[in-house]
């Protein structure tokens, strides 16, 4: 599903030239603090048993706080996909104020 998200959004980088990955420093600054909070939430939710994962269907690699690797990738890939989406919309609709 992460691959799907990458395929689904990163083509905007190439064809619409949104240039998000070229501004990687800004991406890190924008994503890191927010994703940090959500990873903390994820850690809490996993520990409290709010949600759990089928071990057969994940890679089985766990990072800090017993969070599966896929979850960490999720909190990197999904925000970047969202940024590419808004930049693509801005590129198509140049007259819309931000």
């Amino acid at each position, binding site marked *: 599903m992460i691959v799907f998200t990458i395929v689904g*959004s990163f083509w905007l980088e190439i064809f619409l030239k949104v240039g998000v990955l070229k501004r990687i420093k800004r991406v890190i*600054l*924008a994503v890191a603090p927010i994703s940090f909070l959500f990873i903390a939430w994820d850690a809490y939710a996993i520990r409290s048993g*709010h949600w759990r*994962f*089928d071990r057969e269907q994940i890679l089985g690699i766990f990072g800090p706080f017993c969070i599966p690797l896929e979850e960490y990738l999720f909190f990197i890939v999904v925000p970047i996909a*969202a940024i590419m989406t808004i930049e693509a919309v801005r590129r198509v609709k140049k007259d819309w104020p*931000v």
Partner: protein
Amino acid sequence: MSYTQLAIFAVLCAIIFDLYITEIRLMRRRVFWTSYAIIIAFQLLTNWWLTSRNIVMYDPNVITGIRIASAPVEDLLFGFALVLGVLSNWIRIGALKKRS
């Protein structure tokens, strides 16, 4: 706290963050809602995949039980908070750079 409470709390935090902390006020912009409409379509698809195949499972005691595309409605709140938070922060950093 239950997932429901946390999800509502996260949405409120994201809205306050956007309106009063970054002061970007993306919430009031057409560009945000258009982007969000695109994002939510893909989110529903990925949510459906991850929950219908039981890749992710939820404790029935911490959710309302209302499901959209097989995933708890709380996931949409969670996603909204994440997207609004990141995009508001992204635009804020962009605006800072333009000024300097």
